[in-house]
């Protein structure tokens, strides 16, 4: 029982990081942009929030928890959205190849993040270990009483607020995409931009907005990772990149429906951490367990392509740029 709770807890925390990445990318892909820069964007979000609160915490005696949260969220979201803007400019306005631009963004974001993450200490004049304890504590504040309410409390309520925020965003996004006029128009852009254009929808604007906001949301995954998962520190170990690719995989796994990310992300967490709770595994076979999320994703990809069920496919115009005079 203890073990099960521990597995669920670690899966939820792990899953939340990729859930943000996944929902943001879902929004982006719904507009027809395949942004393979998710890892880079999550890096940008993570490092910016860290830098933001790092200077804030150093500047004041007693950091205000609310302000800490705001600074972290806004700087993280903002930097990630800027990454999305760069991607949008290159792919939408300049019509650069989406795959190559996305991969470059990943290299760039990882460079920026690890450069500043590694040199923050030096740039700030050598303060030793980078740590934003006040902010991290604010991020990890749990719901009082409920979180101690037996196993259920520990399984469901013993997390920082961003776990619940992710679920909320996933639900809101689904509602937006499926139930609103704006969502309908956005999906049309990803499916068939020529038709959307003919119906008077501003394709370029829709794509820009979806990609930038999507990138911002993906960036929150980086914020959560830095502030909560590794408790307000920085490590140049490339784990954000790994999580970023898992987020891309999750988009496929959820068949481009953000509500599926809620359970999908946790399932990925369970699959990823399961090895820890299965007795008598050698360390080598533990590694094999970690590729389960990817294998499951590949299976989903294959099954959806052989079944040819249109609702489960990627948006029809995913990865292609749109030029009105191309007919």
């Amino acid at each position, binding site marked *: 029982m203890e073990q099960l709770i521990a597995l669920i807890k670690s899966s939820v925390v792990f899953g939340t990081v990729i859930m943000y990445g996944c929902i943001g990318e879902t929004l982006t892909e719904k507009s027809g942009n395949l942004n393979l820069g998710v890892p880079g964007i999550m890096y940008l979000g993570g490092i910016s929030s860290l830098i933001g609160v790092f200077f804030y915490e150093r500047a004041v005696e007693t950091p205000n928890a609310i302000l800490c949260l705001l600074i972290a969220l806004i700087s993280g979201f903002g930097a990630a959205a800027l990454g999305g803007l760069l991607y949008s400019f290159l792919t939408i306005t300049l019509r650069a190849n989406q795959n190559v631009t996305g991969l470059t963004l990943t290299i760039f974001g990882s460079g920026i993040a690890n450069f500043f993450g590694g040199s923050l200490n030096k740039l700030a004049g050598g303060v030793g270990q980078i740590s934003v304890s006040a902010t991290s504590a604010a991020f990890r504040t749990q719901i009082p009483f409920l979180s101690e309410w037996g196993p259920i409390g520990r399984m469901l309520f013993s997390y920082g607020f961003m776990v619940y925020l992710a679920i909320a965003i996933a639900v809101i996004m689904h509602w937006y995409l499926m139930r609103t006029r704006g969502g309908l128009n956005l999906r049309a852009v990803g499916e068939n931009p020529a038709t959307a254009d003919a119906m008077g929808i501003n394709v370029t604007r829709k794509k820009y907005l979806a990609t930038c906001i999507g990138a911002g949301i993906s960036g929150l995954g980086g914020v959560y990772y830095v502030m909560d998962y590794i408790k307000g520190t920085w490590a140049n170990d490339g784990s954000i990149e790994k999580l970023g690719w898992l987020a891309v995989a999750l988009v496929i796994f959820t068949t481009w429906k953000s509500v599926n990310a809620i359970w999908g992300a946790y399932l990925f967490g369970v699959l990823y951490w399961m090895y820890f709770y299965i007795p008598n595994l050698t360390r*080598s076979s533990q590694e094999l367990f970690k590729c389960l999320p*990817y294998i499951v994703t590949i299976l989903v990809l294959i099954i959806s392509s*052989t079944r040819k069920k249109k609702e489960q496919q*990627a948006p029809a115009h995913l990865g292609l740029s749109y030029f009105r005079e191309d007919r």
Partner: protein
Amino acid sequence: MSTQSVHVEREPLVRMVKRDGISNQKAWLIRGISLGSALVVCALLIFMLTKLNPLKVYSSMFEGALGTPRRTWVTLRDTMMLLCISIGLAPAFKMRFWNIGAEGQVLIGGVATAACMIYLGGKVPTPVLFLVMVLASTLSGAVWGLVPAIFKAKWNTNETLFTLMMNYVAIQITSYCVALWENPFGSNSVGIIHPNTEWGWFPKIFGQQYLLNVIIVMGLTVAMYVYLKYTKHGYEISVVGESENTARYAGISVRKVILRTMAISSGICGLAGFIAVSGASHTISVNTADGRGFTAIIVAWLSKFNAVVMVLFSFLLVFLDKGAVEIASKYGLNEYASEIIEGIILFFILGSEFFINYRLIFRHAGKKDKKEVA
């Protein structure tokens, strides 16, 4: 029907028109200009961060990459790695098949090589060992790439996403093998394989440790150039990449070409894994490919499959990488600066493609004398 002549009242301030074509010199001039601007931007960035004279910084980058023969050889070795993978990707991209799985194909090839070294090293004669290593790495890489290709050919499964996912399966398999072959126990790494006997290591040629890498990869480059340009297979790849309809008209079996080309593409990536393990690191880890599988995608794409440009491009990126590591250690910065510079340069070159494919027309530029921005 053409919509080129739009009534004046409707014409926006700037509009873009697809170019019919552009001369090669002009295209490369545009790329050159963008590369130059990228270097200027990087210089500004370096200056802002370090307050150092960017020219001095660039010269110490030069120092870092080519300052000593040893450094030159390491730069050369890494250039060859990147080039080898790019060469592998070229035919797939030319066919418009998005093989994003090079990272995994390299790793699998590397794992196969390491396995041969570990299990066969010292037990079979060296030529046999090498033959087995080459075969094992190429075949395993090819299999890794054929899986998505088969699904693409049969069910049109999205190859971009499929090959991307295959990377991570390969990474975990590599982790598995690393744990399996751990040496010494508990170190969580394989360590240098056969450090004393050097079984399965590339031999030195003329006393140069990495000369064989250069020979093999340059040989492959020439072969690939010839393959794409002068052979029937290469011709088929071009036609399939241009239009499947034309391929059908010419009687080319699109499926067969996809499968064969992907086998070759990923086979070469597997071979790159062999070079990385047997010819460079003499060990295997998840970092054996070190993101080059992704960088090579950019190299192959931006070089437009031109072999000479691929060589130069690979060299440029490795040069930047080595140089940045040097300035990082010299000025106490962080070596990830190289990824930032790399990113900026690639963004610029990516953006420049727009001016090669499209031209801008300004409204008041007159009807006949349409101003071109290039």
